[in-house]
């Protein structure tokens, strides 16, 4: 509970940001607050009440989310002060912090109502943040679509929850097994509601449009945060639900998701759309982990989520830097990046290679874990589909690796603001850390 309280207080401070004295302290206080929020887990660990349960899953997924937002806060803070020397965008930062609080709650619920509240606390700031570039029509359109689809998805989740209640008389998952058709239908609708957040086909339609329309810093952050939060929530859900109800459905969704994501990613010219579709494909890989749920599922989904978050943050940070240098976020904008800034190119290559799953980067271990899981499921068709999808993924990611080393559109070197440099260095350190010590993340569960 401490972590959520601390984040809420930080969010309120951010809301008042423009009026507060000692603005210089805002960033240190926020980062310190994040650290305290994570330490907060240790003071009450494990805590189980009828509404919340702060257990190992919430601690680990929550930690990853705090790191994601911490890094993004640094780059966003720098973004504001970099442009025209204006104030850092305190409101944006505050909304990001609130959304993170929602994310933390999404992996710390035990009562379904809390899960619903968590999803909404995560979503509502996101609707605003996606539309925060008021002068770009695409940003507004993305915000509109995300809001409409999100509202419908919330209704579907809620209806599922109500059906589950009607079938079992309880808001606690696993307390009563849904024998009735009504309860089972409720379970499926709730899974659908969470899958919407994760970007699983057929609830994926918002992903490419929103990723493209949203301001790039926000895109990277939300891509990482929402995926980790949604899969954390799914992990908590499916563990206490009977496999026979959702198993086949989820398998179908997983196959559709990774295939659609990869097939459409190949055809994209816009970087942000490409990464959106590849993000959908990654959601498909992560769904495979629940077929069936075994003792390694949590480790796999956690490691996959963390490595995906790291790669995505790196990639979108680079895209944002490219956009700042005056280029639009197309694949061609990458040309000549190597000559323009070597550190940024290094971050780009490491992140993309990690997303593609090339050893020894963390993405490789993540994919290896998923493959092993599929092998253990003894389903050869599924194995082949997964493997083909990995190959298609490698194909389009390698295109992205080659572009920075070809002749460029622009020759001027890319200049970073101080906070962006800090963000890039932190991401590089984390990536190398994950290369050297993947066991640190692999052995927590």
């Amino acid at each position, binding site marked *: 509970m401490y972590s959520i309280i601390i984040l809420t207080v930080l969010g309120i401070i951010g809301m008042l940001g423009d009026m507060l004295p000692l603005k210089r302290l805002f960033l240190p206080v926020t980062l310190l607050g994040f650290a305290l929020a994570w330490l907060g887990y240790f003071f009450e660990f494990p805590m189980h009440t009828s509404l919340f349960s702060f257990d190992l899953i919430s601690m680990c997924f929550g930690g990853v989310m705090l790191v994601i937002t911490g890094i993004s806060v640094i780059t966003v803070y720098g973004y504001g002060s970099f442009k025209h020397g204006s104030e850092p965008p305190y409101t944006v930062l505050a909304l990001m912090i609130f959304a993170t609080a929602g994310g933390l709650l999404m992996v710390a619920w035990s009562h379904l109502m809390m899960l619903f509240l968590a999803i909404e606390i995560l979503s509502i700031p996101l609707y605003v943040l996606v539309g925060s570039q008021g002068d770009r029509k695409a940003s507004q359109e993305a915000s509109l679509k995300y809001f409409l689809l999100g509202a419908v998805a919330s209704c579907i989740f809620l209806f599922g929850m109500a059906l589950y209640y009607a079938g079992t008389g309880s808001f606690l998952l696993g307390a009563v097994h849904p024998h009735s058709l009504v309860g089972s239908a409720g379970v499926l609708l709730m899974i659908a509601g969470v899958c919407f957040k994760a970007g699983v086909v057929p609830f994926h339609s918002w992903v490419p449009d929103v990723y493209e329309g949203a301001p790039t810093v926000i895109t990277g952050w939300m891509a990482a945060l929402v995926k980790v939060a949604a899969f954390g929530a799914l992990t908590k859900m499916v563990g206490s639900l009977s496999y026979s109800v959702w198993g086949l459905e989820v398998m179908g969704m997983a196959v559709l998701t990774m295939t*659609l994501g990869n*097939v459409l990613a*190949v055809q994209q010219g816009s970087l942000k759309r490409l990464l959106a579709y590849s993000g959908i494909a990654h959601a498909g890989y992560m769904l495979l982990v629940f077929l069936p749920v075994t003792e390694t599922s949590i480790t796999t989904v956690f490691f996959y989520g963390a490595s995906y978050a790291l790669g995505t943050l790196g990639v979108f940070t680079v895209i944002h830097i490219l956009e700042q240098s005056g280029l639009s976020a197309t694949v061609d904008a990458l040309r000549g990046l190597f000559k323009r800034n070597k550190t940024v190119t290094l971050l780009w290559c490491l992140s993309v290679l990690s997303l593609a799953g090339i050893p020894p980067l963390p993405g490789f271990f993540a994919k290896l874990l998923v493959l092993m899981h599929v092998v253990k499921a003894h389903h050869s068709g599924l194995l082949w589909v997964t493997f083909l999808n990995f190959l298609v993924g490698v194909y389009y990611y390698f295109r992205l690796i080659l572009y920075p080393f070809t002749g460029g559109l622009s020759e001027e070197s890319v200049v970073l603001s101080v906070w962006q440099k800090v963000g890039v260095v932190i991401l590089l350190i984390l990536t190398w850390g994950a290369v050297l010590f993947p066991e640190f993340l692999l052995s927590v569960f």
Partner: protein
Amino acid sequence: MMLFGMIATLAFPLIGFFLITLLGRVLPRPVGGWLACVSVAGAFISAGTVLLTCESSATIGLFNWFEVGNVSAHFSILVDSLSLWMSVMITGVGGLIHVYALGYMKDDVRLNSFFAYFNLFVFFMLVLVLSDSFLGMFIGWEGVGLCSYLLIGFWYETHAYAIAAKKAFVMNRIGDLGFLFAILMMLFFWGTTQFSVVFIQGLGLGAGVLTAMTMGLLIGAVGKSAQIPLFTWLPDAMAGPTPVSALIHAATMVTAGVYLIARSHVLFSGAPLTSLMVVGLGVATAVFGALVALVQRDIKKVLAYSTMSQLGYMVSAAGFGAYSAALFHMTTHAFFKALLFLAAGNVIHGLHGEQDIFKMGGLRKKLPFTFVVFLIGTLAIVGCPPFSGFFSKDAILAEAFAYSRTVFVVLCVVSVMSSFYMFRLLFLTFFGNARYGEKHPHEGALVMQIPLAILAVLATVGGCLDWPQESILTPVLGVTLVVLALSGGVAYFIFGKQVDVLAKQPVSMGYRMLWNKFYVDEVYQRIIVGPFLSLSRGLNQYFEIFLGKLDVVSLRSVRWVGYPFKKMQDGNSGTYILVMTVGILCLLVGLFL
């Protein structure tokens, strides 16, 4: 103590690398160099302390790299006499060369990055020898390859040097593929590459599998240790600064292949076919290197081919099971070859970059100190008693005698040839008339002389490190002295007098053959690179259309698969909600089925 010492050994050069890289722009230039020297010295002291204090061998677990399913990789430090001795040698000789480089490179603009690479090299070399698994070793293996590439091409503004660096890189990658293949086999069979598991379970495999695995390791060793057929990068690697040639391409990195074979001797002993190939390749390389070295004109190239030849000695020794002799020769070779290279560096430095021995001569009086240490190095390498090379060569020859008479005879002939080309080098450089024109040769600074002096002492007394157990010392002693006197005499007769050597160049066919290194580079160009290029051109011409078609077809089929999905993404939020609704309906229908 042991734990602390070993971690310190690894940490010192790594910290040095990071400090110099991060502070490179801030530090005044000599400080970066001194920092590098201090870090290697620290590593030497810690490794030495562990060697002196610890009697038993042990494994120090560092951390689990990963554990995925039944495949696992742990990083631990293997402490036994072999790895400890290797690390003391690497840091010791490496430290001396670091100090030497302080003087040699003092005018270079990129001094700090030179020392950063140097420290990184020492770190990766230590990782290579201290790992207790093939995977850890492979990381060090790749790391030293990277540093070697960076340092060969250190003066990359010169186009030829950059080409040489690329050649070394590519040749080494071919070898690395073999090593990687062996590692993948190990992971497939045992899920781990720990020595402790591999060497115990290794012999349980069938002979065929074991042969394939050891062949992979052998290809790796051949690439790194510049054996036939992957040797052509080593002479070209002399493009790097001389301290680099001394440290990486003579004393340490190129011996990694020998270390690999010696370390995995359990596997090799179970694969007689591979062992036979090891001996064959080693002997062939020894002969080849010695033959080519007979006629080279570049002082560093002579030493490079002599390194190749000596590596052939070690590899063949490892092949016929004389592991301790091979490692003993590796140690003494590190001493005297580093000494020779550094002395050659002194000569080059003194003559402002001149490397052609036909444009030297008579330097004995101008560079007396260099002459003395070079003489010591020469006597050591030709195996003159009581210098160190005598004992280590004797150890190898003794084992060769027991293994096969043919190999023994061939290696003896190589030994005679090596004494001839070394004396030729000595006489052409330091005796005879001065042919260097208007230059004024001068001795290097004190920082360059002290390491030379220490190495000279080591090259002299290094033989007492390991007295051969079964020796054929007495007969060999006499033979050696006679051979030495003869070859030295012949060399002096041809090259030592005050004659115009250039005029005396014999232009026979054999000479041209040797001068062009048996045309190996040209042959590779003809039979591998040329056909490969024309094949690629052909492919480019005829298959590009095909590949283009294939690309188009696959893209089109992907498009075709993606068409309905793309239709769904028409930008209208109504469609999106419809897709969601249909999805929900399908889920619910699935429930009823």
